[in-house]
C-alpha cells in the first residue's frame, strides 16, 4: 500500500519544468475564473485592469495581472470591516480566524479559512516535513503559543496527518518546555531560530546535554536566521541535530518554501501550489536567476483567499532546481528569505541590513544574544551600536572577540563606525515568535526599521 519515497508528492515534486508550467497555467486559469465570480475585491481589480478571466489561460498570462499590495488589502479591510470583500467563500463557512503578527503594517491583516483550506495548509507543511526526513513515529515538539498568529498551526496538523506524535507546548514556560522535550523523547523540535537557541540556553542552565538527547531534527520558521549559515550552524551545534528552514506567511496561510534533507543552502518553492516571481522592488520588472529582488507570490490552494501577484516585500534570490541534488524540480530561494525590502536601515548614507549583521555576529561563539541600537547623537548625527550579551563560560574571550566583531562589522559596512558594546547577561529581550533585535531611537529614521 505504501512505499518509502523521499518526496511527499513524487508526481509533482519531480515534474519536468514544462509540465510544471502547464499545471500552473491550468490552476491559474481556474483560480482567476473563480475569483472573478466569488471575490468582489479581485473582480474590481481585474475589471480595472480591463481583464476578463478568459484572457488568463496560460502561465505566460500571469504577467497581465496587476500586482496586489498589502496596503490595498489593509485598505479594503478598513473600508469593509472586518475582512473586506476579498474572501471567495462566505464568512459563515469559515472554521478559523487568524491575523498577522504585526511586525509590519499599521493594522493586522485578518483572515478566515474553511475546512478544505486547513487541509491544504497542512498539506503544504507536509512537503517540508517529509522532505527534511520527518516520518510517522517521530515525536514532534512545537514551541508555539497556539494563538491568533497562524505560525505553526498548520505544521501541527501536518504532523498529526503524517502519523507523528505531537507535543504541543502552548503557554508553557521555557524550563517546562525543555523538560517536556527531554521526558517525552522528542525527535523533532519546531521553533523560531531565536527560540531554538533560547531553549538550548535554558537546557544548558538546567544541566541537560541536548546533543546527547533524542532530538535529531529542528524545523525552524518565522525569521530569516534559519538560512543564515552561522545561525544554522550554532543551532545545530547546540542541539546536536540538523536544522531545516521553512518560510510562510499569514497572507498565504502556510509555507511556500522548505529546505530538503540535502541542505542545499536554500529552500525549494512549492511550485505546484504557488508561482513565485522575483522582481526589482523599484521597477517591478522581473530579475534573472541569481539576482536579488522582491518575492511576488500567486497562490492557488487557499479557496477562501485568492492571492494574485502579491508583493511580499521579502528579499530573495531565486536559483534553478539543479542547484540541489535531491531530484526535485522545484526552484530554490538561495539562503531562504534574505530580509525585507523595508528592513534596510540607512545610517549616515550606508545601507545596514539586520540579517547581514546577524550573519556576522553568529560567526562569534562568545555571543549569546545581541541587539542593534540606533540613536541620534548631538541632535543630528546617526549612531549605531551592536550590544552583546556574552555566553556563559566565554567571558575571558570577550575583549579579543569584541575587536574582531568590530572589525568584521566595519569592514562589511563600508567603514561605517559601528560601536560594539557588552551588556549584562539577561538584559536583552528574548523572543518566542519573530525576533525584534533592532531598537531604533533616532529622531529621524534614515530607513524603515
Amino acid at each position, binding site marked *: 500500500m505504501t512505499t518509502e519515497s523521499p518526496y511527499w508528492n513524487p508526481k509533482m515534486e519531480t515534474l519536468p519544468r514544462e509540465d510544471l508550467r502547464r*499545471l500552473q497555467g491550468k*490552476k491559474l*486559469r481556474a483560480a482567476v475564473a473563480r475569483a472573478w465570480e466569488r471575490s468582489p475585491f479581485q473582480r474590481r481589480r481585474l475589471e480595472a485592469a480591463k481583464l476578463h478571466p478568459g484572457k488568463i489561460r496560460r502561465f505566460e498570462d500571469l504577467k497581465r495581472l496587476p500586482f496586489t499590495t498589502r496596503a490595498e488589502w489593509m485598505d479594503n479591510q478598513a473600508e469593509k470591516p472586518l475582512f473586506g470583500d476579498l474572501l471567495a467563500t462566505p464568512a459563515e463557512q469559515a472554521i478559523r480566524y487568524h491575523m498577522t503578527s504585526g511586525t509590519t503594517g499599521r493594522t493586522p491583516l485578518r483572515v478566515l479559512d474553511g475546512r478544505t483550506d486547513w*487541509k*491544504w495548509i497542512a498539506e503544504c507543511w507536509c512537503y517540508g516535513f517529509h522532505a527534511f526526513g520527518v516520518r510517522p513515529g517521530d515525536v514532534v515538539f512545537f514551541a508555539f503559543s497556539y494563538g491568533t498568529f497562524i505560525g505553526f498551526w498548520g505544521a501541527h496538523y501536518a504532523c498529526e496527518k503524517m502519523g507523528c506524535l505531537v507535543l504541543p507546548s502552548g503557554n508553557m514556560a521555557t524550563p517546562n518546555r525543555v523538560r517536556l522535550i527531554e521526558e517525552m523523547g522528542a525527535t523533532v523540535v519546531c521553533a523560531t531560530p531565536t527560540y531554538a537557541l533560547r531553549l538550548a540556553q535554558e537546557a544548558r542552565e538546567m544541566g541537560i546535554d541536548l546533543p546527547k538527547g533524542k532530538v535529531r531534527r529542528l524545523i525552524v520558521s518565522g525569521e530569516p536566521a534559519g538560512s543564515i549559515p552561522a545561525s544554522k550552524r550554532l543551532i545545530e551545534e547546540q542541539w546536536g541535530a540538523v536544522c531545516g528552514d521553512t518560510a510562510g506567511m499569514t497572507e498565504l496561510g502556510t509555507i511556500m518554501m522548505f529546505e530538503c534533507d540535502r541542505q542545499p543552502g536554500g529552500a525549494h518553492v512549492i511550485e505546484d501550489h504557488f508561482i513565485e516571481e522575483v522582481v526589482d522592488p523599484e521597477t517591478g520588472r522581473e530579475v534573472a536567476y541569481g539576482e536579488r529582488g522582491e518575492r511576488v507570490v500567486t497562490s*492557488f490552494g487557499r479557496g477562501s483567499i485568492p492571492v494574485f501577484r502579491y508583493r511580499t516585500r521579502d528579499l530573495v534570490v531565486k536559483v534553478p532546481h539543479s542547484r540541489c541534488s535531491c531530484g526535485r524540480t522545484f526552484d530554490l530561494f538561495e539562503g531562504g528569505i534574505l530580509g525585507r525590502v523595508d528592513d534596510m536601515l540607512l545610517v549616515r548614507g550606508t545601507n545596514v541590513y539586520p540579517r547581514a549583521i546577524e550573519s556576522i555576529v553568529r560567526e562569534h561563539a562568545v555571543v549569546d544574544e545581541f541587539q542593534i541600537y540606533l540613536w541620534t547623537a548631538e541632535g543630528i548625527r546617526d549612531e549605531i551600536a551592536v550590544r552583546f550579551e556574552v555566553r556563559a563560560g566565554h567571558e575571558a574571550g570577550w575583549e579579543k572577540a569584541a575587536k574582531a566583531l568590530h572589525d568584521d562589522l566595519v569592514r562589511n559596512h563600508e567603514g561605517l563606525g559601528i560601536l560594539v558594546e557588552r551588556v549584562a547577561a539577561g538584559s536583552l529581550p528574548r523572543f518566542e515568535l519573530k525576533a525584534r533585535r533592532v531598537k531604533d531611537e533616532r529622531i529621524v529614521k534614515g530607513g524603515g526599521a
Partner: protein
Amino acid sequence: MKDLIGREMTPVERKILRAYDGLAALLREPGLAPTVVSNLKEAASSLWICVNELGLRAERDDDLAL
C-alpha cells in the same frame, strides 16, 4: 481521461476521482443527518486535497461548502 498536465490518468487516479465524485454526490442528497453531513464533508475535503495534489482537477465544487 487526462490530468491537468495533459497526461492520461492512471487507473488509481481515476478511482480517486470517482471516489471524490461519489462523496460529492452523497453530500448533495437531501435530508442527511448532521453527523453524516459533517463526516462526509471531512472525507470529501480530504479527497479533494488528494485530487488537487495529483493535478486531476482544478475547479472546486463550491456548492458543497467544503
